[in-house]
């Protein structure tokens, strides 16, 4: 009897230690980002970092303004969002309010495949399929540009938006929908005026998560957007994002402890906090619905 009790305690302690590992990971990320970027911020004033309009840390004439990389990230993210939010929302409404359940059983896994395709394969698709296709419509588009990877990233995050939105639409009480139908509303009117407002926090949460995904996406932009820091809003020009800068430097095999090495972590800090804001907002919106339904 005593042995059983002791065993129970040991197992519980073991499981607790395992779950602490997730906290350690986050702590590790934050510690490493600040520790390794310290030499960078010692060398650069924070004011220069956020106002300087050029990013040339690898040149002799160093300019250390993060703006071009942030602009590149925001531009590709914006293009992806313009594709993914409307399509994702339409798909979610269709699956939740229109599709017969057998069709839904088939469509949902197929949609999820879009998120399962390796990002490097999407990069190939953006660079060697979509860009030439776009060039035949817009001859002045450059071989590396923000538009093509933006569109491909949009396609990639459709399933994140549609499946999370659909989950929250499914959770809308049937009585609300039936009340709407009883008043003679069509499925579309019910979706727009009853389902979406009732599922709003879940839908908004899925948008935020999609945006965070697009900001952190690396390979598609590293392959198809070019590796040129460029402060522009023109989607036809090449841009460099926060993520693709990290890839560019990593490919060059930068020695540990050098200034170039610390720039990667400085960029990482910016990327981490940009996505963190969206992740946390998304979490609280989602938590809100779950407790609301109960």
């Amino acid at each position, binding site marked *: 009897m005593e042995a059983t009790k002791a065993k*129970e305690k040991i197992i*519980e302690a*073991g499981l*607790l230690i*395992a779950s602490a*590992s*997730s*906290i350690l*990971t*986050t702590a*590790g*990320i934050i510690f*490493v*980002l600040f*520790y*390794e970027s310290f030499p960078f911020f010692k060398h650069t004033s924070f004011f220069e970092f956020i106002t300087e309009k050029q990013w040339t840390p690898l040149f002799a004439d160093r300019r250390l303004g993060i703006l071009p990389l942030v602009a590149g990230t925001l531009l590709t993210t914006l293009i992806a969002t313009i594709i993914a939010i409307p*399509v994702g929302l*339409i*798909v979610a409404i*269709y*699956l939740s309010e*229109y*599709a017969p359940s057998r069709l839904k059983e088939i469509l949902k896994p*197929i949609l*999820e*495949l*879009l998120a*399962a*395709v*390796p*990002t*490097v*394969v999407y990069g*190939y*698709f953006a*660079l*060697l399929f979509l860009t030439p296709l776009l060039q035949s419509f817009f001859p002045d588009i450059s071989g590396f540009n923000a538009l093509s990877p933006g569109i491909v990233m949009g*396609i990639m995050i459709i399933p994140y938006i549609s499946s999370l939105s659909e989950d929250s639409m499914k959770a809308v009480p049937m009585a609300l929908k039936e009340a709407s139908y009883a008043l003679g509303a*069509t*499925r*579309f009117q019910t979706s727009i005026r009853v389902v979406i407002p009732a599922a709003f926090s879940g839908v908004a949460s899925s948008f935020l998560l999609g945006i*965070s*995904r697009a900001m*952190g*996406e*690396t*390979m598609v932009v*590293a392959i198809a957007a070019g590796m040129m820091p460029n402060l522009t809003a023109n989607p036809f020009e090449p841009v460099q994002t926060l993520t693709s800068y*990290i*890839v560019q430097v*990593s490919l060059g095999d930068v020695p540990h402890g050098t200034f170039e090495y610390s720039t*990667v972590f400085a960029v990482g800090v910016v*990327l*981490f906090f940009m*996505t*963190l804001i969206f*992740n*946390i907002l998304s*979490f609280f919106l*989602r938590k809100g619905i779950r407790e609301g339904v109960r």
Partner: protein
Amino acid sequence: MNREDLKIYTARYIDHAFAITGLLCCLASLGIIAVLFFDLVLDGLPRITSTFFFSFPSRIPEKAGILSAWVGSVIVIVVTALFSIPIGVATGIYLEEYGKKNWITDIIEINISNLAGVPSIIYGLLSLSLFVYLLKFGESILTGGLTLGLLILPIVITATRESIRTIPQSIREASYALGATKWQTIRWHIIPYSTGGILTGIIIGLSRAIGETAPLITIGALTFIAFLPSSPIQPSFPFISFGWLFDAFTVMPVQIFNWISRPQKGFHINAAAASSVLLVMTLLLNGIAIYIRYRFRRRIRW
């Protein structure tokens, strides 16, 4: 026709138009996957031969192959699985079955949800500093496996929790009523009933890990590896060696990235061929996951 009728007709028309738009959007995504797949296969097909699978990379595109890449992928994924499955499942069980509702579990929960959204390249930076330099594992298979393991941990944890959550409370109470302890209940009831969902989550996580490129580039997975890791079985005493854990490696997506970034058309063909192989690998894994989910859902009815 009076105005009221017109309103009703318009509403119905919009309703039908939306139904068609919705279906088209779903079919379009199917279409995109088809275009993607056929584009890759058409470009890469001439290269997909047995020599492609059993050759090392080379400077001549026609002679280059993916031997070190697919072997590397398989070994790294094994390390990833060995690391992430026990920790992920244990965390999921703790949070669902033991964790009391207090601020510690709240923090763990926010934390896991945030980790799932952290860009994969940030995990690469963590590993670069922590595993490569601080713990001195180097740019090795061990570092790669641990990196991907941390990356898919949230997926495994979430799948475990969701699967356990569907088990009715009455099952636990029945087990306690027969005098079972908490662990016995988990071991003989909770784990068996949630296996389907957990397995699905693990496979989806591993299929994501197999396609990950960015964090492995950050930790310095090399793109030109013309050798295989050392064998785990040695001819002399003690016969088993873990030296392979510390060997340099490359994986399929990193090899593909390398070939895409080269200007020569020949390497783009290689990239297409390797991408089709990688795509088939991930789609197969996802297919297995969907099948398992379907089977277990049919078998267990409360």
